């Protein structure tokens, strides 16, 4: 379902206000009746309205206003709702103690959160820098284990909550409404890598609940148990934390215990844990699986053959790339309803697919998931950013930051320039496209932890890696450019410019000068460094087409003539006024440009002059490309996203080149020449040109290529006639390698080392006994070739 509209929010808040005022006046009211009344007016489900009412409580709690105790505050509030309530805050009365606060709530009452300032207010310099310093909490690094659930709920972050990964919000809502309404145990599994927000979502579920027993202070624990009426909610907060007594199979034991006790279960599970669990299941000497073994096996692979013929089964199951659901049966009896969210499947930079979870007709679980889609790179400019989780988070963070132009040193301060630039929607869109391109090239999805790391880099560069938050003020003061000489000012500005978002996200500070930035160990730079636009500046003028060039305006800026000698002025003048370059260019950039021009005018050695030109050329290249969302290898990335979109059909330009790569002709200039591979060589490199010694070879007939999709993966299927020869992962590296083919000659790219072994194995697949065709053997010598005849079968 889409976000709530203004009208829906109005009706929701009206309803809440009515109930709150009734409660304050001691007038009885019926929450269920109010919910039903609202359902008739806004076409939202009961649970959705209930959840949203809890969101209203969360906003009021944060504003230190009374709220309805029956709606426990639930964070992750839609920004529009927060703003709407703020606009009507006077209707909620003065700040005072919460109404109807019960003992449990009082005990677990969160301390007053640090209040971000309202976005519409002008921010004083001290307050701005205080805000910026809070970013240090979110720079990449992170914790080794999931934080304790109470620490997350009791200490609300300064920064807004990120939107949940696809399906998490709906799954938690399904869990909470279900355990309120039914005695049937519910098992919720959040599966994925670290940093995906699993423990954060789990903390939200148990927020305000009393623990059955309080674990020892200080350490994060594997399991927490909460009271829930006659039952308990067992939270496996971090399944990577081992049990002292038995390391293997701990999750299966947790599940068995919850099942035997009839308790509800929430489990945050890394995929690595599932691997260990499966090993434990397989090494078990028990004849039949128990509930835990069935469930962990099913989580790992729902098609696992060992699941057949077990007493415990998962029935009525539904599977999607990123979610699954089913019923846990013991024979014919249903023992629990299960919902699983794979939190690391959907990119945070793509449209978040919609999910609906409800009861099935038989009282089980009904799961409807929209298909997860990758947007073609060239179609991303049309994307609605409000549907993209990463965009929503960035938008919320930026809404809290509002530097004034006059008193923050915006003409020399790169951090101010970053904040200013990112408030522009086009710049934000460009940066998001770069992030997504980095994911595609790296073949991995960024987690929220990495997204935060990338966002922090976009705002304050690599400062969190180099100084503490307390040193920020001193650092900026010490690095403020002096007025001593033009050259010194340029050097100082150049140093500060490395904090500019267009430099920092690529790790440009470590750029060796040849445009190949060192990637190092920083996980953000590992993803974004490879798409640094300076690695692949394509001549031409950007027109948004898949194969468009783009770097000519930057080159022209250094070769053209301007009265001021300013490359930036020339560059800005050469692009349309609607170009995002205008939006990303801030006072800082103009100062840097002026410093560059002045330093050149003052005079430098030719070596320093060349170095300054080289550095500033790369700076403007990144500035222009990032603003427009142009990553390195954009055309190849477009081709990859097109191939994913076409699904079963390989795009024709790609297919032709892949064929040249997989089955090159002996003479690439002659399309009729044989395509040959050696029969007995250690590596199956295609045979080109004349052979210096006589050699046995296998000729290849024409091949057909089709593809299939699994999640974000594309698999290329190689067919000879109707026979499938092999499959290969058509990742970015292979697409790039294929697109380097020109005139049927294979090219060499930075990806060649990674693709060569796979390509060879694909060719070698034709040499395995059942796929050998005796009619295709050849003998070569020099440029001659003779067909081999085998008649000894």
């Amino acid at each position, binding site marked *: 379902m889409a976000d709530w509209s203004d009208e829906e929010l109005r009706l929701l808040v009206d309803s809440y206000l009515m109930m709150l005022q009734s409660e304050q006046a001691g007038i009885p009211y019926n929450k269920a009746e109010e919910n039903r009344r609202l359902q008739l007016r806004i076409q939202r489900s009961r649970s959705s309205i209930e959840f949203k009412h809890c969101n209203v409580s969360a906003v009021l709690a944060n504003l230190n206003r009374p709220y309805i105790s029956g709606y426990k505050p639930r964070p992750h509030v839609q920004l529009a709702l927060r703003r709407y309530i703020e606009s009507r805050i006077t209707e909620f009365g003065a700040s005072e103690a919460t109404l109807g606060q019960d003992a449990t709530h009082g005990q677990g009452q969160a301390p007053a959160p640090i209040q971000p300032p309202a976005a519409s207010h002008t921010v004083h310099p001290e307050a701005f820098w205080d805000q910026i310093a809070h970013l240090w909490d979110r720079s990449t690094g992170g914790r080794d284990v999931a934080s304790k659930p109470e620490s997350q709920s009791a200490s609300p972050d300064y920064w807004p909550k990120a939107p949940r990964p696809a399906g998490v919000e709906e799954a938690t809502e399904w869990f909470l409404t279900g355990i309120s309404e039914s005695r049937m145990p519910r098992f919720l599994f959040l599966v994925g890598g670290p940093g995906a927000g699993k423990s954060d979502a789990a903390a939200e579920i148990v927020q305000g609940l009393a623990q059955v027993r309080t674990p020892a202070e200080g350490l994060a624990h594997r399991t927490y148990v909460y009271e829930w009426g006659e039952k308990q909610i067992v939270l496996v907060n971090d399944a990577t934390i081992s049990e002292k007594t038995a390391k293997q199979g701990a999750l299966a034991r947790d599940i068995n215990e919850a099942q035997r006790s009839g308790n509800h279960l929430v489990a945050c599970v890394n995929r690595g844990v599932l691997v*260990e669990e499966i090993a434990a299941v397989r090494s078990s000497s028990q004849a039949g699986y128990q509930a835990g073994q069935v469930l962990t096996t099913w989580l790992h692979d729902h098609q696992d053959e060992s699941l057949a013929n077990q007493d415990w089964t998962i029935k009525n199951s539904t599977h999607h790339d990123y979610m699954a659901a089913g019923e846990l049966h013991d024979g014919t009896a249903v023992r629990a309803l299960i919902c699983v969210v794979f939190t690391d499947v959907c990119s945070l930079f793509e449209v978040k697919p919609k999910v609906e979870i409800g009861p099935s007709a038989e009282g089980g679980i009904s799961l409807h998931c929209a298909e997860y889609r990758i947007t073609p790179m060239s179609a991303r400019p049309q994307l609605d950013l409000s549907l993209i989780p990463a965009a929503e988070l960035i938008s919320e963070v930026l809404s809290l930051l509002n530097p004034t132009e006059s008193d923050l040193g915006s003409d020399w301060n790169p951090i101010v320039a970053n904040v200013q630039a990112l408030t522009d929607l086009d710049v934000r869109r460009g940066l998001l496209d770069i992030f997504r391109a980095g994911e595609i090239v790296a073949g991995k999805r960024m987690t929220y932890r990495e997204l935060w790391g990338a966002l922090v880099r976009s705002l304050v560069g690599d400062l969190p890696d180099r100084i503490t938050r307390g040193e920020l003020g001193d650092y900026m003061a010490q690095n403020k450019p002096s007025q001593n000489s033009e050259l010194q000012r340029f050097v100082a500005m150049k140093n500060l410019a490395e904090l500019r978002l267009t430099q920092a996200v690529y790790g440009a500070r470590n750029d060796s000068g040849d445009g190949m930035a060192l990637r190092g160990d920083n996980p953000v730079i590992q993803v974004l460094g490879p798409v640094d636009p300076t690695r692949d500046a394509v001549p031409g003028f950007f027109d948004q087409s898949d194969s468009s060039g783009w770097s000519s305006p930057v080159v022209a800026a250094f070769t053209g003539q301007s009265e001021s000698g300013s490359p930036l002025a020339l560059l800005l003048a050469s692009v349309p006024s609607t170009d995002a370059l205008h939006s990303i260019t801030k006072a800082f950039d103009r100062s840097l440009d002026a410093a560059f021009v002045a330093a050149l005018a003052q005079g430098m050695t030719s070596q320093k002059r060349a170095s300054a030109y080289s550095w500033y050329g790369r700076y403007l290249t990144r500035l222009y490309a990032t603003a427009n969302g142009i990553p390195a290898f954009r055309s190849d990335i477009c081709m990859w996203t097109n191939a994913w979109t076409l699904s079963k059909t390989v795009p024709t330009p790609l297919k032709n080149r892949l064929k040249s790569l997989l089955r090159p002709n002996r003479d690439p200039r002659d399309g009729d020449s044989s395509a040959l591979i050696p029969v007995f060589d*250690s590596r199956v490199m295609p045979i080109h040109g004349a052979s210096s010694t006589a050699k*046995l070879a296998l000729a290849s007939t024409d091949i057909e290529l089709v593809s299939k999709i699994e999640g974000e*993966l594309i698999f290329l299927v190689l067919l000879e006639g109707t026979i499938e020869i092999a499959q290969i992962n058509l990742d970015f590296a292979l697409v790039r390698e294929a697109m380097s083919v020109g005139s049927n000659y294979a090219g060499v790219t930075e990806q060649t*080392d990674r693709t060569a072994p796979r390509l060879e*194995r694909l060719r070698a697949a034709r040499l395995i006994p059942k796929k050998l065709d005796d009619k295709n053997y050849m003998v070569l010598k020099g440029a001659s070739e003779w067909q081999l*005849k085998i008649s000894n079968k």
Partner: protein
Amino acid sequence: MAAEDFQQIDSSSILSAQIKLPLARPQYLVAPEVFISSLAGSALQAVPRGARGAKTGLVYKKLPGNTNSAKVLEMYPRDEDLLRLGNELAADGITTLHGSPMILAEAVAESVLGTRSAKGKTQSASPMSKSLALVQDLRGLLNTNSPPDLGKILESLYVLGAPSIDSEKGAASRLLEALQRRTEKDALLRAIDRAYEASLFGGPITSRAPSIGKLSNEWVGLLDDTPFRWFHEKWNALTSKEWVDALPARVWVDWAATVLRLALGMGYLWEASWYEALKKEVLQDTDPSWRSVRSSMSPALSWNAASLQPSMRDVHSPMRRKIIRGYALQKVIDDWLGENTNPETTFETAIQKMRRDETFRSILVTASNTPTNVKSNAFEAVKYSLSTREASGPFADYYGLLRKRGNYLVPEPGTEWVAVVASLACDGPGGKCDVSSVLSDLVALGARPEMTDLIDLLEQAGLARGSADADQGVIVQSAF
């Protein structure tokens, strides 16, 4: 078996015979192909045309500059042999349309060439069939009258890793079955095999019983999670019909040679670690047990992070020290056992007696400080088993674990080495596993790379399939 399973073994039931591993000393192994040729040669016999007595050594192809003695016979078909090979191929139904039998024979002779080392003066044939396996032997390749019995060594390594006493076949028997199956499936290879046998050997190739006997039965079932068990299991898998049918002929041979190279190299490193741990057990005062010796063994090979400088990753000196001192310890322990124990002496009793023997204790200390700047055939064998030979060119070796970096020798496996180890960790051809399974196999072999390095290697080899959490959950796809 899980990593801790040896802890379940009842130490008191182990005899002193399980102190000394029944392994002969290996020598420098000149080419990867010699592993398969030696193993096949231990179970086959044939007399080459032109052989001058039983001591004639064989090489497939002598390269320019080769000065081997006249007792070393080159089997590469030239002139009349080439014509005979062409005619034999034709007689077996292999002909070219419009080409001559000589060109066909030349193409075959060249196509079966194996790896070639940078300074090597010989080039072996890739032993893809029985006759191709017999065109070279260690006597010829080492140019020596009395080479070590590599076939027997490999059989010993295989038996040491047997999980139970009823393991039915030896390593050579399994190899021959695999070669037989391959030639039955592949008409061209079958014809080449027959043509080589008929043209280069004076009579048919016949079988003989491999010389394994009962030499290592007392070790059966004890050495789980060791290179020996890894070898036993992977050899059984690789010689199964599933894997033979799944791999191209040359690839199968390269993979088989890789398994044998690893078994020998890592097996002898394990042996050295074993004697080192035994020495520690004798010199300390805790209750002696077979389990505690196993537990205190150091990793056979240190595999430091790829991000470190080569000097920090060097394994040359540590390997040399380990092998030389391990062998010195083995000798003195073996001598002592011969004089002080009988077949009924238990392991624990023997260790206690060693402890009480002050002279022996001091001999042990001296042996463990043996200078390491001496020539060691065993070290050479281990080093060259694990090292990449020719790194580039048409006859490059892509199946080495170690590579020279300047003056250092560092763990830097070839892509196909990774493919072999990872694929054999999968549940069969076309199968999958996770990176923890690959790591588990490597640990059994005696090497533990950083997880991130291993994932990088798997990705470079095109075997790792993406996972958002770069941990043990990364899926590994078999190369074939």
